[in-house]
């Protein structure tokens, strides 16, 4: 039983990591029907920004909590700026183009950003400082769940609640829902659709930045390629839960993370991906739009 709980908690950490990134995919898809492949790179840029800022602040001798707060803030602002700019440069001009064009543009952006960081920074793995401290009160439980696992889990839950509230009860949220249902109609009732899409990218990128800082701090190393791997898994989770649906992104991440964890624990980590993707195929056979996705007839 202990082993089951341990595996469950490991799975939860993984799920939370996937969810933080999957949200960005699903929000953008929900609103403009685009798979933003550059999202993983925004996450990676968030992590790199955090590394640079925290290193500089540490040199100037800032207190630990100031470093953490300023680092997270800087990562969010910087990543959001990237997300917003990518949208303006690579997707907005293609808003009325055939659906494949922005997709290719997204893949191009992803490769561009990866190589940009590779050239501007380094190809080596860099050590990432532990921005999440080892809490004293966690010491008795450290063998089951670490401080960073706990922080990641709590952050994800907080983000989920805030995001749901934002979309359900605020003016912006209302406008987002309207835009996602029908862009032309939304324009007619006076919604600035371009602004709303920009805001969506900013929120998605900010979440990716938070994910980047937390995850890099959890695993203690980063390089230019981390966004790709994490992005692929998060994208899978988003599809599993129903791309375009925010609760779906959480559910998909949860199922993917737990499946991987239990497959590793009870079968073998050699088969971790086999189980995860077999499950994906099975679910898509019975629910082609994902668990919580709305099925609609579309030409791709």
């Amino acid at each position, binding site marked *: 039983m202990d082993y089951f709980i341990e595996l469950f908690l490991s799975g939860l950490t993984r799920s939370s990591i996937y969810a933080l990134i999957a949200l960005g995919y699903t929000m953008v898809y929900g609103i403009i029907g685009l798979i933003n492949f550059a999202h993983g790179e925004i996450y990676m840029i968030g992590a790199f920004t955090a590394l640079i800022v925290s290193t500089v602040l540490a040199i100037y001798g800032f207190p630990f909590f100031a470093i953490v707060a300023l680092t997270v803030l800087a990562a969010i602002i910087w990543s959001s700026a990237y997300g917003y700019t990518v949208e303006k440069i690579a997707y907005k001009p293609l808003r009325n183009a055939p659906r494949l064009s922005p997709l290719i543009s997204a893949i191009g952006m992803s490769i561009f950003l990866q190589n940009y960081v590779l050239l501007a920074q*380094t190809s080596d793995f860099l050590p990432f400082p532990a921005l999440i401290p080892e809490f004293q009160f966690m010491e008795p439980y450290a063998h089951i769940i*670490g401080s960073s696992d706990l922080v990641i889990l709590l952050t994800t839950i907080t983000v989920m609640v805030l995001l749901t509230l934002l979309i359900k009860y605020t003016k912006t949220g209302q406008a987002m829902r309207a835009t996602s249902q029908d862009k032309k109609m939304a324009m007619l009732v006076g919604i600035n659709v371009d602004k709303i899409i920009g805001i969506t990218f900013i929120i998605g990128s900010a979440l990716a930045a938070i994910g980047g800082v937390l995850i890099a701090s959890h695993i203690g190393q980063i390089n230019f390629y981390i966004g790709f791997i994490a992005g692929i898994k998060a994208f899978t989770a988003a599809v599993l839960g129903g791309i375009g649906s925010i609760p779906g992104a959480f559910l998909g991440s949860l199922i993917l993370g737990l499946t991987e964890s239990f497959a590793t624990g009870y079968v073998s*980590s*050699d088969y971790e991906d086999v189980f995860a993707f077999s499950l994906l195929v099975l679910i898509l056979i019975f629910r082609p739009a994902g668990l919580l996705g709305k099925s609609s007839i579309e030409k791709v």
Partner: protein
Amino acid sequence: MNRIKPVYLFLSIIFALTTLSNSAFGTETVKIGVAGAHSGNLASYGLPTVNAVKMVVDKLNAKGGINGKQIELFIEDDVCKPEVATNTATKLISQGVNMIIGHICSGATKAALPIYRDAKAIVISPSATNPDLTQSGDYPNFFRTIASDDAQARTEVDFAIDVLQVKKIAVIHDKGDYGKGLAEFAQKFIKESDKAEIVLFEGITPDAVDYSAVIQKIKRFKADAVIFGGYHPEASKLVTQMRKKRMKTLFISDDGVKDDTFIKVAGKYAEGVYATGPADVSGNPITQAAREEHKKVYNESPGAFFENAYAAALALTNAIEQANSTDYDAVGNTLRTHDVATTFGTIHFDAKGDATGIGFSMYQVQDGKYVQVQ
């Protein structure tokens, strides 16, 4: 990494082209290729080889070259990827190079070897440790100045069982050519020894965000030690997460982990980790001279496989000199029959291409440095 302005790149290409054509039209040269990972994740394994070969060749050229011919180097990057390595090999062959020092990673070497064999080119790798490369007998053109993985696995297992006296061992690998090969040899040797039990044998997915599930499993099976086959990025994630879960399980790994980047990334969690690496040869006068010169030229200590590459360069240039040609058969025979003094002492190559007299030692991280313990 420096950003290179396009204009400099352009000028340097022009410059390189003009110097190349000068030498081509001038006197005949001995062409030696250097292939390996010079950029990407694993560049830190490949670049020291370039430095080592350059140092050996510069010295020879200053003395008038080999039998009066200057040596010309062709340096090609394979980023440690098999699919790139085949291009690298084809490119070297098409430039008329038939003496190659490289490649660095086993997977890339394996992919490139058939091309070199068919073109009758001699290949000496300073670091490709996959046993099949020599033991399969498929590549009579291949030599190496490093012991193969089974020798490395042998060192790991003997150390774990005889010195550390562990009874339960978890063998973990990264599913790659190098890591899995090593892990399978470790498994075989542990079974043969009959003194310890393998409680877990698993592959993990490289680049994954979290390994806590497999770590829980190691804990559940109460392993005394983990033998890990793979490279440092995964090793540092495993060790860090194990130590954060307050596990004291011993961690024993290979020369893919015996790299200073591992210590830099894993930080305090790296303490106490064991890793095998090429034997310490700091007592050898050739090695001492080579290291000192490297410090003088590059203002830093040499990196991974530097001594192996230095030995490879010495062995190859010596064989070309003895054979007085770059003929495939002549150089191959000379490598097999003539002793040569290298950074590892006097060595020669056996019929399969492995060097006699090059082995592995065990190192441990102590106070942020790898220290030889056996």
